[in-house]
């Protein structure tokens, strides 16, 4: 990107003002990027640990479920699962992190999550405890999955913002500021040149006047 301006004092003043703003913006954006990175690294670490936990819990839940499926006939299993457990109600609120709007999920009504007193949605006589364990395991993992969804969405939004900020910082640092500096320098040199030309012209005119 080349900045073309008239070589005037007014343009030079304007260029210097732009340069000053660009440098200030660059510093602010760099600070924003660093802060976003700090937030992002903390979140990504938590998200990674949570994902490992969720994977392990889901794998255990599926293992229990596969055993329940083996012990019960498919008809009994399907009949037992015709009624879901009480739904879990959640609400999503938003919070600003460095001007990024990130979601926060809150559980309004826990339904039949672990700890909530509840009878299962099927009778005990025709089913086995493997089914209880599987349902309990799936219910247990739901809270973690909601938290994981929140964290991963935050990470995704922060990552996008970091990327955007990084591009802006780089554009300022490697394109706009050097161009403004070069343009200011060009104008400055051009003005000096014009001043020197003016001075030599005046001296030449003075010489001619003296000779007459």
């Amino acid at each position: 990107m080349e900045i073309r301006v008239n070589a005037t004092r007014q343009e030079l003043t304007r260029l210097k003002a732009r340069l000053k703003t660009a440098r200030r913006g660059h510093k602010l954006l760099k600070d924003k990027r660093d802060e976003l990175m700090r937030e992002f690294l903390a979140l990504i670490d938590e998200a990674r640990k949570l994902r490992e936990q969720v994977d392990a819990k889901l794998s255990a839940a599926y293992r229990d479920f596969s055993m329940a499926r083996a012990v019960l006939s498919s008809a009994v299993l399907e009949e037992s699962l015709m009624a879901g457990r009480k739904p879990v109600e959640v609400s999503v609120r938003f919070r600003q992190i460095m001007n990024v709007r990130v979601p926060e999920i809150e559980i309004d009504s826990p339904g039949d999550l672990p700890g909530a007193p509840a009878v299962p949605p099927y009778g005990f006589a025709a089913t086995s405890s493997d089914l209880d364990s599987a349902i309990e395991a799936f219910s247990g993992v739901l809270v973690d999955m909601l938290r994981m969804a929140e964290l991963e969405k935050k990470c995704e939004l922060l990552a996008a913002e970091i990327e955007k900020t990084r591009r802006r910082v780089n554009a300022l640092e490697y394109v706009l500021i050097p161009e403004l500096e070069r343009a200011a320098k060009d104008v400055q040199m051009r003005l000096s040149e014009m001043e020197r030309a003016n001075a030599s012209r005046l001296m030449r005119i003075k010489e001619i006047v003296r000779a007459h």
Partner: protein
Amino acid sequence: MDEYNWASSVGHVRILELGLLTGADFSKLAETEDLRAAVSALRDTDYGKQLEALGNLEEFGPALERALGDEYEYVLSFSPEPGPILCFLSKYDFHNLKVLAKELLLGMPMEPRAVSPLSIIPFDDLRGACAVIGEDGIPSLLPQLLERARSRYGARNGHGEQVASFVSKDLVPALVNTFEEARRQGLEEGGPFGVDSSIDRGWMSWVSGYYRKRGYELLANFAAAEADLTNLRIVMRSLFHGLDPAVVTKILLPGGTISPRDIGDAYAAGPEALERVYLCVRWVELFRRGLERVQRRESLTEWEKECEDTLVEIYRMARTRALGPEPVLGFLYGKENEVKNLRIVLSGKQSLAPKERILARIRRSYA
């Protein structure tokens, strides 16, 4: 009941028993490399025909169910009277009643895979019958139900009239009463737990009553043992989940050697009181082991297997009977147990479970 009428059927069953898979067979199956190898190993058994027809090996569940259905029909074809066998099979009708009750009473969307194809009364007939129960409590579609039941079993084995009589005089009234009870429970408790439990209770009460009324004492004892062991499992799971004593009293099955009220009262009083109740019956050791697991918050999987093995041992008493319907029903129970074991092995292979994990869950064989 003339036991001598069953002589030929018992002879048939003795031969069929030779084809039952043994514990060693299941161990060999568990040691196979994968699902394909396990299914191949079953090609020479009674399940071979159904499994060979499978396009997708993962769909072994319905194939095993079809094989079980074929066995039921075959046993019915040589039984002198279908009553005890149909009573044994009625669990599938009561199962379908649960599906129907959840659909009609609780407004849940019907899941087609939840319907058992092994019921005596086809599900659609049951649905039609229950949907138009009159003030007298009798379904107005009863003639259609009877006709369907006749054509299903009667044409093949000449039991048409007996099946129709069983359906109209025994099964349908039992289903109607149970449905009404489930309707009341469902409305009172407002949930599927109450509906399921009410139907389970209705089934057990009717089955044990049927056997006793017709003088099948050993079959009634089997039903009582099944009720006792089921109640024991219900108690342990209730303790594990901390269910309210008022709820537990309502879900215990009748027909066992200990009355649901005694168990319910003891449950409310605590584990010591429960142990006192079980001290006078043969399940006390099983109770203690179960309680230990509950108190340690350990999985009940292995303990439940122990309960089922105990029931298999009880049913195995039928093998010592020379005459009567008991050996036939014992064989059918053994066949169901075999199908469950096959499901455990094949599901284990499907989910790449280690051999030890599969073997730990295989139930004792009836063979």
